[in-house]
């Protein structure tokens, strides 16, 4: 089984919350880092300005020494900032006992250097003043201890990570809770569905109690139940019908064989009984064969050995086959149109024969049957129309059901055991086609289609 919907929703909420927190946290982190950087810069710049002022405006002869003293004082006053000075003239050097800052000043591109023991990172900046008559060219550098700033940033990062995790967990928990509440109707739907069983097939889901999102599902489910119910009912009556169809020949055989055996009979009489039995057995065999055929079609067996054939030519052969029956009934057949379709000839002829036979059986003597053949984009269809009494619309879709009879009182003719049109449907199915029936204006039309791209 898949993970529960509530768990999946909770995980998705958590993932969404995590992404949100991470984006906001990232932005805040960036702002904070920029601010800290600017603050450091300001401190450094302040110090550089001071030194620069002294170097520009100092006029005393021992200017280097005095500035050195000044820097010494400043360094002592605030241990988190430091200054250095370097020049060709040794008098204008301060802090030249530290090799790293001196190297940084000379290369002019040091941004962060380590000084002291253990080495502490310092953010530094270098400035150069060109020579005046009072002094040579001087480079000087100021730096601030970067550690407090990076400590602040690290603390912020830790807090951010913890908050993100906590928020994500909270979002997951809340999401799970919300999903459970939101899925309540599904649970009720499930409980509702559990009440449906073979015992109470009429039971359906209570649609008005469902929220809008589930109403469609419920309606589809109910519709599926309706279809299953119809199929189930058809199957029930089908077994009934089969038993009935088989009962008559069986009863005949048992009865007449018993009668024959009740007294001594001569060979001729016994032969008579055997012949009669054989007729009944043939009937049984035909029913069994037809039912196997229908079952195969329903199990998804498809036509094989398809040959592209002219449907009009096939109709012609069928008319030729039933010519004598048409002749006896004084009926004629007219064929309109043609199409070429891939078909399994013997199956197709069987369907055509059943349809034409159906038309003959349900027409008055002397009537005319119209056969229409049409070609569509993806299918070809053939239909048989004959004048007949109106067939109620409730019967039309069921004409193709096994053993279905419009007139329930009509006795089985023995010739066609009510499977003729179901076989047409099976043949259509085997060619990926369908069947249709219409009845109006005193004309009944029954036909089927076959796929062209089978």
């Amino acid at each position, binding site marked *: 089984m898949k993970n529960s919907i509530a768990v999946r929703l909770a995980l998705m909420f958590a993932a969404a919350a995590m992404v949100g927190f991470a984006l906001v946290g990232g932005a805040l982190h960036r702002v904070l880092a920029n601010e800290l950087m600017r603050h450091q810069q300001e401190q450094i710049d302040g110090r550089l300005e001071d030194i620069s002022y002294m170097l520009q405006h100092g006029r005393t002869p021992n200017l280097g020494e005095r500035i050195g003293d000044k820097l010494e004082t400043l360094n002592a006053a605030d241990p988190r900032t430091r200054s250095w000075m370097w020049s060709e003239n040794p008098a204008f050097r301060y802090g030249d006992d530290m090799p790293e800052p001196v190297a940084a000043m000379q290369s002019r591109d040091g941004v962060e250097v380590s000084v002291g023991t253990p080495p502490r990172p310092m953010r530094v900046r270098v400035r150069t003043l060109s020579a005046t008559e009072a002094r040579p060219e001087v480079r000087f550098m100021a730096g601030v201890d970067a550690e407090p700033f990076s400590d602040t940033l690290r603390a912020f990062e830790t807090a951010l990570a913890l908050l993100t995790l906590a928020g994500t967990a909270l979002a997951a928990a809340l999401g799970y809770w919300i999903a459970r509440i939101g899925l309540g109707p599904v649970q009720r739907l499930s409980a509702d569905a559990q009440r449906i069983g073979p015992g109470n097939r009429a039971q359906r889901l209570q649609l008005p109690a469902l929220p809008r999102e589930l109403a469609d599902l419920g309606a589809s489910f109910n519709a599926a139940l309706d279809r299953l119910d119809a199929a189930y009912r058809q199957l029930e009556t089908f077994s009934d019908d089969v038993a009935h169809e088989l009962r008559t020949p069986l009863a005949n055989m048992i009865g007449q064989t018993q009668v024959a055996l009740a007294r001594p009979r001569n060979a001729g009489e016994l032969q008579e009984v055997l012949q009669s039995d054989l007729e009944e057995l043939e009937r049984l065999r035909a029913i069994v064969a037809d039912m196997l055929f229908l079952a*195969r079609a329903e199990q998804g067996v498809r036509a094989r050995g398809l040959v592209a054939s002219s449907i009009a030519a096939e109709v012609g052969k069928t008319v030729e086959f039933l010519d004598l029956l048409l002749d*006896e009934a004084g009926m004629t057949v007219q064929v309109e149109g043609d199409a070429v379709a891939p078909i399994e000839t013997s199956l197709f002829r069987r369907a055509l024969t059943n349809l034409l036979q159906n038309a003959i059986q349900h027409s008055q003597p002397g009537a005319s049957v119209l056969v229409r053949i049409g070609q569509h984009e993806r299918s070809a269809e053939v239909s048989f129309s004959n004048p007949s009494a109106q067939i109620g619309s409730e019967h039309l879709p069921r004409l193709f059901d096994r053993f279905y009879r419009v007139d329930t009182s009509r006795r089985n003719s023995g010739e066609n055991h009510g499977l*003729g049109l179901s076989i047409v449907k099976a043949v259509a199915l085997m060619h990926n086609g369908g069947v249709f029936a219409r009845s109006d204006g005193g004309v009944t039309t029954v036909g089927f289609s076959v796929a062209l791209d089978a």
Partner: protein
Amino acid sequence: MKVLIVEDERKTADYLYQGLTEQGCAVDLAFDGIDGQHMALHFDFDVIVLDVMLPGLDGFSILKSLRSVKNTPVIMLTARDGVEDRVRGLQDGADDYLVKPFSFLELLARLQALTRRGRSQESTLLRVGDLRVDLISRKAVRGSQRIDLTAKEFALLAVLARRQGEILSKTVIAELVWDMNFDSNTNVVEVAIKRLRAKIDAPFGHSLLHTSRGMGYVLEDRGGEAGE
């Protein structure tokens, strides 16, 4: 005709044995796959009737080992009406197949068709009693009287005359005359026979076309008795 029947269902084997023996065939029986394979491989038969579902060794396996040595015609009998069975049987080299329940007449017809295959051209002038059927000029004459037949009536008569003395079922007749290769549930054949009978038998008082109830029709001269 020498026939081997490999069939484990006793009742079926028994009636096939009796029926074929009475038709003048020499029949051997095997009740399981092992015996069947042994006999099929070591003796010569004109045709073999082979059930698919057999104890010991199934029909397909027997067919396979048989085909690796000889080409005896084989008819497969299958209870499952599966298309797969047929296709497989025919691919493996079966010459024909019948789906159970089948009619004995149909089996007989198929056996005769198989053994007749490849034989010399049959005569084009057929005689049944005083009825002569000329297949070339498509004329039928009884005694001295020319009989007027429609094309289909002549085709039906020719089919019956070619196999005179053989009972032909309605299905076989529909297939041979109208090329309708299925159980049709129609009474077309009855009507056609009735009309043919009215032309070739009724005016002459001595019937040649007989009905065998529950089985089919047969054209033969049964001696001088009048009518049926």
